[in-house]
């Protein structure tokens, strides 16, 4: 990195890459992988997503992120669609992951009962 200009150029490429539809569905999956997420089973959830996508022959980038502050709702995953809409799923299990992949990623149906809004009664 030699100048602010170069940094800015790098930034624009980075933004482009982040938004690129490298996959055939336009979705991106982000799994919470801070200590809290890992402790709650984040790695198992990552594996479940990978398997569920593989048997359906779908390629979607899976990324990780830190803690958003609601550690008690981990493991959590965000699914971002091509328009940038984010859906946060909470307290995931491998079974829930299968349903989310089937319903949300394949058929575009958000599984409302697993989203963070379903926990709003206790918020």
């Amino acid at each position, binding site marked *: 990195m030699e100048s602010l200009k170069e940094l800015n150029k790098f930034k624009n490429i980075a933004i482009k890459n982040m938004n690129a539809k490298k996959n055939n569905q336009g979705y991106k999956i982000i799994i919470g992988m801070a200590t809290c997420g890992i402790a709650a089973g984040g790695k198992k959830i990552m594996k479940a997503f990978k398997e569920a996508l593989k048997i359906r022959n779908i390629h979607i980038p899976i990324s990780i992120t830190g803690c958003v502050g609601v550690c008690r709702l981990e493991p959590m995953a965000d699914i971002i669609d091509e328009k940038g809409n984010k859906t946060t799923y909470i307290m995931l299990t491998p079974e829930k992951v299968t349903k989310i992949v089937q319903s949300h990623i394949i058929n575009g149906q958000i599984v409302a009962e697993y989203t963070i809004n379903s926990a709003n009664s206790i*918020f």
Partner: protein
Amino acid sequence: MHIYKTHVLVCEGNVDAIKYSYDIFNEFEYGIKKNKLTNEVKIIKTKCLELCENNSIIIVYPEGAIYENVQRNDVDEIINEHLLKGRIVKRLLVNKSNENNNSYETADFFKKQTRIALRNCGVINPEIIDEYIAYDGYKALGTVVTTMEPEEVIDIILESGIRGRGGAGFLTGKKWLFTAKAKGNIKYVCCNADEGDPGAFMDRSVLEGDPHSIIEAMAIAGYAIGSNQGYIYVRAEYPVAVQRLNIAISQAKKLGLLGSNIFKSNFTFNLELRLGAGAFVCGEETALMTSIEGKRGEPRPRPPFPAIKGLFQKPTVLNNVETLANIPMIINKGAKWFKSIGTLSSPGTKVFAIGGKINNTGLVEIPMGTTLREVIYDIGGGIPNGKKFKAAQTGGPSGGCIPTQYLDIPIEYETLSNIGSMMGSGGLIVMDEDNCMVDIAKFFLEFSVDESCGKCPPCRIGTKRMYEILEKITKGKGEMDDISKLEELAKVTQSASLCGLGKTAANPILSTLKYFRNEYEEHILEKKCKAGVCKELLDYLIIEKDCKGCTKCKKACPVNAISGAIKKPHVIDQNACIKCGACLEACPFDAIIRK
């Protein structure tokens, strides 16, 4: 048997629609033949799948995509897009009406927060530097190095009024200024990531979720004070944080954001990690530096302050993780912007780790000046099971308890210390009516006893003696002059200890004595613990009229302290009872009470 890659299920629908589904079926068959997919795709006609209000449902496996209301001219699109390119045709999917307010940002818990230090946590991938740069990462470092003089950087930080988030609240800009002015060619920048307060984990969250912000801020500090070397002192108990910091440092080096001639300037900055072995005292600044030097982590008297003689006897600036996480934002958005958040004496935000008897445990970042009531009830969601709020403990083992009457004070450095607590690193433990305050004081003191390094006698002996007195009181052997003894000991420990750990160790006792003296007196005079926590002061009693003589409690008692015939009321022998509570759990008639 031939195995097909893809199966297309065409629903025959009800009787009226059969003709129509034949058309669709034929269309598919034709298209598949035309595209030479006959060896890969099998079309299957199925009976009504009962998925449809409209007929003409098509399901494509292995994905399991369900298409609805497919017309003849849609078939080509499904074949071209889905079967050939593997892209699901979204416009034909069943019922696309989805609400778009399902992200965590829309939850009430988040709406009332202002995120500066935690801005990237849960947003970017901490292991990819590109994502940090995409969110304006390293822009502040670039601006500082290429367009500003070191004095200007310090001026911005001074003007922003940001204060140390580690607890004491010293002006960060002043710290930088003193270190910059100190004589010497070699200076150091250190980051205190030895987060030791029980229940506080905001530093870990920043290190794990946004490690580059710390690296960038330390490089900025290095430029401002004229240092070429930084150390991050992080606990070995944070393996994920250590791993991500290492990844982040090597990525930054690769892009030339650390190392020599950053942004083609003369500025060189290197960064290394030092792992702490988990001693609480190493979060104290002089002990931390001694530990980085490779010696036993013990504090030393100040002055000289680290700004004059710190690490390896050289001028050193030491900042907390959360403080540093704010720095790039202050440079990017300006001191005025930062001052517009929070209050006059405490600008900006503070991250709190809320725990204890509260519905929404977790990390929250709020503007300074928010009241405790807002944090506990609006963001925290209140106390579970409809219990009453009793007190909140801030500042961990160095802080104090805040009782109900101060729920509406704004959270600032001064207001908290005025009522006998402190900001601390941001642990916030909420207690309800089931918490015994003497027991709470004992809990925090036990922590201080364990973690006292032993260098100075007031802390080493004082905390131990205070703990012994508290233990005596909770066991029902307390006397009235124990309270005055506690107060005297607390004052001596407070004034004579060498470092912050000892100076503040008595705070939990002093604040509980101030606001909950009646509980101490109850324990001593009436030998009762009304919250039902101190085991030795409890009595288990069987209510005669409710007891059916079922003998369940008798069987559950591990020391045979319960006697009584079948179908006759039982009695607990108070001298033999060890207050384990097994009988209370065993009784099906709620005939046993704890007093």
